[in-house]
């Protein structure tokens, strides 16, 4: 029960006039009556609450509180069937005694809090106590003696605590320290009020404690009672009895938001209540309380844990585990924060347990929908008609939830702290849980959950390097329950991924198929199998339909494309890498599209919901693709493509046709700078390298590029650097030829070979290629070993007519394309010819993507055009769509 309600109740009783008080005292009377009676009473209470619903809010709340009180009382009566002497005695207590008991309880709480130096708890308990004492005085009852005693002990311990605090300043946290000072004030004030009593107390305490007790006690009306009380106190102080210890533990566990009524149950009936027989009743109670506003979730979890300890049969254990795991997931109601890690860990263990039980006992089956059965009856395979006990529940949803919570916790933990690493270590356990669930579903032959669980498994390993996958798999191999697909130490991880994906391809769920396909491609790309990955991506035709997919899948698609680009880069396929990465960089929202950071939009403020949704989509840090590395790869490949191209173009007109806008923009920016210092960032390096390449200074270019620090993050960085050096030499040669061809009439091949330190054969090959492709109007003189240039100067009108011819050509092509679209030819011939110009499949992908986007853009009124927005479109569109749905 929350503190708020208790306070409300307190204030009620303080005024003494509310009917609430009356009702509760009325309630107390029939307490020893039979359960049936109290049940009746409760229903009466329900009715009254309905009637009073129109009344004030507070009223309603206290009503609720009353109900809960009643319910727990009902529980107690339940347990009292076992009858304990003490309980009977307590039950006949009057209302006044009850108040005394209450005070005593808070006194005890304070004592306990003192032991652990929890001043916040002490302060709140003290407030309560003072209030109760005041009430006591209001009804013209004397101040209870133990209050005085508590006051005195408090005072002394306060003094010592303050002294201690001064010595060791760092020991207390802020709130605790604040509470301590507040307490000091309060105690002073209250002590002044009760000055006389304290003096008395001090005087008497000098005599023997027994005397003291007797003397003080005789001032009060109920000496016997007091004596009893005091004795118990003394005993408690001397050697705390077991139930009390438990209570202390509990207090350590949480705050003081304790339901007193529940405490009594815990104290009196704990040992007896959780018997195998009463499990189902208790379960039902817990389940009824579930989801209600003021259910104490941790209390519920504790009850269920107890129940699990006493559960005997498999059926009982399954039932309790099902309830317990869902209870743990309930613990955290908020969507934005993650579940406490210890709870998560126990939930994971319990899911394991559950899977183990069900896997070992095929006679029990957990299904999402079953026929109705009696919740309170014990069932076993013998009692069922077909020998199978069907229980309502869903393991797959537990596994899903576990996984989601894991991701959520990673999203929320600071990725640079040790906590994150510690948390990541739990993945091993989670992974083996997933594998166990997979094994279970394989055994049961449930296809749908099996695919889901395999997808979960795949998502844990597809983006990881081999070593990590092997580590994860080794845990699975050691487990008692193994799925059919495991990684053999001799096998490649690719085989594992492949078999998992193949399983998913056969499933009926198209979303899973898509995701499996993308993960598969990602994995291939990660392992530098660019061609396989590219072919798979093209064959899947995903680029045509990805716009209609959900956001998570779109993110996965973006990740896959980016990884493909990186893989091309690592393989030395510069052109492909540039084409693949260009799209995502053109949007300038790389981080957002990869779900690695929330984008700050300049002209548009995100609504809180959008931002929240965005945050939920973020990938955990360890799955991120390093954007700086990505940018370096993109810019370097852009440089290698763009610089020779720039050199080959001689007219201003053609210069506007750019391949990579973002690269060109950076170039222009770098050009405009008056003074260039030594390069610092990756961009600086690349820009200065580009300059050097333009000037034909390939060595400087190479050194600058190889100096970029981020390469160290790339696997096999030495090889990549070597490859880059070679490319720079070649492209440098091409740039040189383009730039300086007009100034030569012949040029010796051996000179070129020396200048660019390339073998003569490579030089010849490059030059031949350029001549063949009509990039260079020259020819080779074999006997002399020189290039002979034939340059023709075009007159203005000749030049213009050439441009005109080109434009007319483009016009016809555009027309044909437009017609194609109108006719709806998906794989039209014309488009192919177009893609052929790029000569690379990457280009084709983009062409197709571009086409798809254009049509879509048209449908939506062309809100955003241009190639650059392509990547974003899917996501942005989806977001607004999601909002509309909301």
């Amino acid at each position, binding site marked *: 029960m929350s503190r708020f309600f208790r306070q409300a109740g307190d204030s009620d009783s303080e005024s003494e006039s509310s009917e609430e008080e009356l009702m509760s005292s009325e309630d107390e009377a029939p307490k020893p009556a039979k359960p049936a009676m109290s049940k009746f009473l409760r229903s009466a209470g329900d009715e009254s609450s309905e009637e009073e619903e129109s009344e004030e809010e507070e009223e309603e709340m206290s009503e609720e509180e009353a109900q809960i009180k009643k319910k727990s009382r009902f529980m107690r009566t339940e347990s009292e069937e076992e009858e304990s002497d003490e309980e009977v005695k307590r039950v006949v207590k009057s209302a006044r005694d009850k108040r005394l008991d209450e005070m005593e309880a808070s006194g005890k709480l304070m004592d306990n809090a003192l032991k652990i130096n929890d001043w916040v708890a002490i302060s709140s308990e003290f407030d309560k106590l003072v209030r109760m004492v005041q009430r006591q005085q209001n009804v013209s009852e004397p101040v209870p003696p133990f209050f005085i005693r508590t006051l005195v002990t408090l005072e002394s311990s306060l003094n010592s605590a303050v002294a201690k605090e001064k010595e060791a300043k760092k020991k207390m946290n802020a709130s605790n320290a604040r509470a301590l000072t507040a307490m000091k004030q309060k105690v002073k004030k209250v002590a002044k009020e009760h000055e006389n009593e304290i003096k008395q107390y001090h005087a008497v305490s000098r005599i023997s404690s027994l005397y003291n007790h007797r003397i003080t006690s005789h001032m009060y009306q109920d000496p016997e009672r007091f004596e009893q009380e005091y004795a118990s106190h003394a005993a408690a102080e001397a050697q705390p009895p077991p139930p009390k210890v438990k209570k202390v533990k509990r207090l350590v566990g949480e705050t003081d938001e304790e339901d007193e009524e529940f405490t009594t149950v815990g104290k009196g009936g704990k040992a007896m209540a959780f018997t195998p027989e009463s499990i189902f009743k208790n379960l039902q109670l817990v389940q009824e309380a579930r989801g209600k506003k003021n259910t104490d979730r941790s209390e519920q979890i504790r009850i269920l844990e107890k129940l699990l300890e006493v559960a005997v049969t498999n059926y009982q254990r399954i039932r309790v585990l099902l309830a317990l795991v869902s209870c743990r997931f309930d613990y955290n109601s908020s969507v934005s924060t993650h579940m406490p890690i210890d709870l998560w860990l126990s939930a994971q263990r319990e899911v394991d347990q559950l899977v183990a039980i069900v896997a070992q006992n095929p006679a029990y089956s957990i299904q999402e929908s079953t026929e109705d059965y009696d919740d309170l009856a014990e069932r076993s395979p013998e009692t069922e008609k077909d020998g199978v006990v069907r229980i309502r529940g869903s393991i797959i949803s537990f596994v899903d939830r576990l996984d989601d919570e894991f991701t959520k916790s990673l999203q929320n933990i600071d990725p640079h702290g040790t906590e994150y690493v510690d948390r990541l270590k739990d993945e091993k356990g989670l992974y083996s849980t997933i594998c166990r669930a997979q094994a279970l579903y394989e055994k049961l032959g449930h296809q749908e959950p099996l695919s889901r669980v395999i997808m979960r498994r795949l998502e844990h390993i597809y983006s990881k390097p081999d070593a990590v996958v092997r580590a994860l798999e080794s845990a699975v191999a050691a487990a008692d329950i193994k799925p059919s697909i495991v990684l053999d130490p001799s096998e490649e991880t690719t085989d594992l991924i492949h078999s998992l994906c193949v399983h998913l391809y056969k499933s009926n769920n198209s979303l899973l198929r898509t995701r499996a396909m993308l993960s598969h491609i990602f994995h291939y790309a990660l392992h530098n199998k660019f061609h396989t990955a590219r*072919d798979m991506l*093209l064959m899947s035709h995903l680029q045509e339909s990805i716009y209609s997919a959900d956001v998570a899948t779109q993110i996965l698609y973006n990740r896959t494309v980016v990884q493909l680009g990186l893989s091309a880069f690592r393989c030395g396929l510069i052109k492909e890498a540039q084409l693949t990465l260009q799209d995502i960089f053109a949007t300038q929202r790389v981080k957002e599209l990869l779900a690695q950071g929330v984008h700050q939009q300049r002209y548009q403020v995100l609504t809180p919901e959008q931002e929240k949704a965005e945050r939920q989509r973020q990938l955990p840090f360890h799955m991120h693709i390093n954007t700086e590395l990505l940018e370096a790869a993109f810019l370097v490949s852009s440089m290698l493509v763009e610089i020779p191209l720039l050199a080959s173009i001689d007219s201003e007109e053609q210069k506007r046709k750019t391949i990579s806008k973002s690269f060109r923009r950076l170039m222009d920016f770098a050009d405009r700078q008056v003074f260039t210092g030594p390069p610092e960032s990756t961009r600086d390096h690349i820009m200065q390298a580009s300059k050097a390449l333009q000037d034909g200074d390939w060595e400087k270019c190479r050194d600058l590029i190889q100096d970029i620090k981020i390469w160290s993050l790339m696997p096999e960085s030495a090889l990549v650097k070597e490859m880059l050096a070679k490319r720079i030499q070649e492209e440098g040669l091409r740039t040189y030829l383009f730039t300086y061809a007009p100034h030569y009439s012949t040029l010796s091949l051996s000179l070129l070979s020396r200048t660019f330190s390339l073998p003569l054969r490579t030089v010849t090959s490059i030059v031949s290629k350029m001549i063949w492709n009509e990039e260079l109007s020259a*020819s080779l003189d*074999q*006997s002399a070993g020189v290039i002979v240039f034939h340059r023709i100067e075009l007159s203005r009108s000749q030049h213009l007519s050439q441009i005109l011819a080109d434009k007319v050509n483009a016009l*016809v092509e555009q027309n044909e394309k437009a017609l194609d679209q109108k006719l709806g030819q998906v*794989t039209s011939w014309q488009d192919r010819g*177009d893609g*052929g110009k790029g000569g690379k499949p990457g280009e084709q992908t983009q062409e197709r993507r571009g086409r798809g986007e254009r049509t879509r853009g048209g449908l939506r009124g062309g809100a955003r055009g241009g190639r650059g927005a392509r990547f974003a479109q899917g996501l942005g569109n989806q977001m607004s769509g999601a909002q509309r749905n909301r």
Partner: protein
Amino acid sequence: MAEYDLTQKIIPYFDRHLVFPLLAHLAESELFPVEHVQAAQYELAKGTNMVDYAVSLFQQLHPDEEVPPEFAAKRENAVSTNERLQLEAQAVLNVIENPEVAQALRQDKNQNLQYLKEHYNVTLEQINALYNFGKFQYTYGNYSGAADYLYHFRVLSTDSDLVMSSHWGKLASDILTGKWDVALEELNTLREAIDSRAPTAPGAFAATSASTTDPSLMQLHSRTWLLHWSLFVYFNHPEGRTLLLETFLSPTYLNTIQTSSPWILRYLATAAILSRKSSTGALSSRVRHSIREIVRVIQMEEYQYQDPVTNFLKELYVEFDFEAAQRELSKAETVVTNDFFLGEFRDDFMDNARYLISEAYCRIHQRIDINDLSDRLNLPHDEGEKWIVNLIRETRMGADAKIDLEKNVIEINRPPQPIYQTVIEKTRGLAFRTQALGAAMSRSQQPPPTMQQNETQPAVVEGAR
């Protein structure tokens, strides 16, 4: 050279009977131990009804062993089945061969069935007997008979699956009897049938067909089969190579090649090289630019498949490394010689390949040492000179290239193309293309086939992949 032998790769895509010639060729070429090939032949024959052939193979393989008795029983069985099926089929055949009936038959198959039923009491089951008998004849090697029966069956039957199957059967029979004209015709009808509908597997004549029912996958299968079967036709029919380029370079089939059978690229590349000289002008642009196109595909599929033939093209047109190209060419020569389909074209292939090399070489160079060029072409010096003279005479280069025997060089003087010429080139096709556009618009219901003819450069796309 066994590493470049494709027999193992292509056999799964052939019918059992079509493999016999392949194996026979292997036995001759001696790439593999003779015993292995014979064992394979025997295994192959065992599954057919060609009992006598199987027995003779068995005896070859195990000269000192008894012929297993099951062959006798099988033979009995085959003969009796033959008789039974023949009787059944004969009834229908008698009716059909009646000239009256032949005249009465119309285009509409249903009407024909009705007619036959009314007048001659011929039912659907009886017509199917034609199919059964044809198929049986095929299994014991009577291919021409099989072709006849299947032809008649196809005229009458309405069962699309069986018709499809009979298409395949007829094609196989025609191939095996060596009637290339008929086979070509059959191939074209079959191709239309496959392209026009979601097809079934090559039915009874396909020894292994996938158990899956996915129509697009089935279509891919059928196309792969067709590609392989058509090799027989295209490399034997006089016009075959050009047709092969036409077919294989059409987007759907190119995709099929890239997806399921990259080794077909060898045949594609060879055909492209071979068809160089036959370019009489009436060719479609697709064939004219085939080499460029194929080089692109080869480059793209390099990671999946490469052999000396494809490497030759790659080295020549991608790397422009003439030495490497020459090395690959000499390897390719043996590959081509040993290949079942290409064996006959060895000389043609070498001729054309040399031509390609020298063309590229001349285009890039201004002054060429004749000795050097002869080396590049794998020719001795004297022959090389002769070859070059022929080359210059044959081609339009005549005006530009001169041999200087004193320095032993060829001088090529290629004046740059006048600017107006380039503009004319560029704008040449425009009017026609625009017309095609207009035509397509007016027929907007159907995709315009004429546009395909008009393409300057076909390129590949993974459309069907």
